[in-house]
């Protein structure tokens, strides 16, 4: 009944209106969900694109050698 899903007025209301989203709705409207998803992926992509530190390559090389040696 009190769902503010898709309510254009919510935009014009002060910050506290966002709290209603938690109290009354079980779900976010799809555009909000998309915006959050986009930001999440943008943040994650930035992390994913960082070069792999050498320590991991070295670690795997070492272990590979050890495994080879033990057979």
């Amino acid at each position, binding site marked *: 009944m009190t769902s503010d899903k898709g309510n254009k007025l919510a935009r014009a209301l002060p910050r506290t*209106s966002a709290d209603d989203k938690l109290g009354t709705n079980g*779900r976010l409207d799809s555009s909000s969900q998309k915006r959050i998803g986009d930001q999440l992926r943008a943040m994650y992509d930035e992390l994913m694109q960082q070069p792999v530190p050498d320590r991991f390559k070295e670690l*795997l090389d070492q272990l590979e050698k050890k495994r080879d040696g033990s057979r």
Partner: protein
Amino acid sequence: MTDQPDLREALLAAVPSLRAFAISLSGQVDKADDLVQDTLLRALANLHRFERGTNLNAWLFTILRNLFHSEHRKRRREVEDPDGAYAGRLRIQPEQGSHLDLEDFRMALARLPSDQREALLLVGASGFSYEEAAGICGCAVGTIKSRVNRARLRLAVLLNVDDMDDLGPDSMTRAALQG
């Protein structure tokens, strides 16, 4: 070394996503790298337990998550308000001027309960299905769904998502006002 010729490549290929997950979980790059290293070591020591043909990434994420939580539990005993500490660390991370909106996002993510943050990262960013995420976290699919849902709702409130259209000047003003 004929059983898993591509193992090194497969593990190396998994490192970026493991790191992204670990950094997002812990909020600290150096801690995250230690976590990834421990994950690789543990994976190699337990390779015989890995069921071939199943998802290597999901298995590695399970190991990393378990390591993170056993560490986290240890730390929890020492530090009150671990989430507050997490947020504080994130705040001093170097950031890139134009990425203020992402900085806001990181701060909001840091304020989620860790079970919700983890579920959202697995499903919304790491590309796992709800079923896979449930397997990784050792809980029911419905639990993951509700955690993801609650995480999104909380983020919407924290980020005042109705304003998120307004990138640039507005988000900077907002950051300055909240600063």
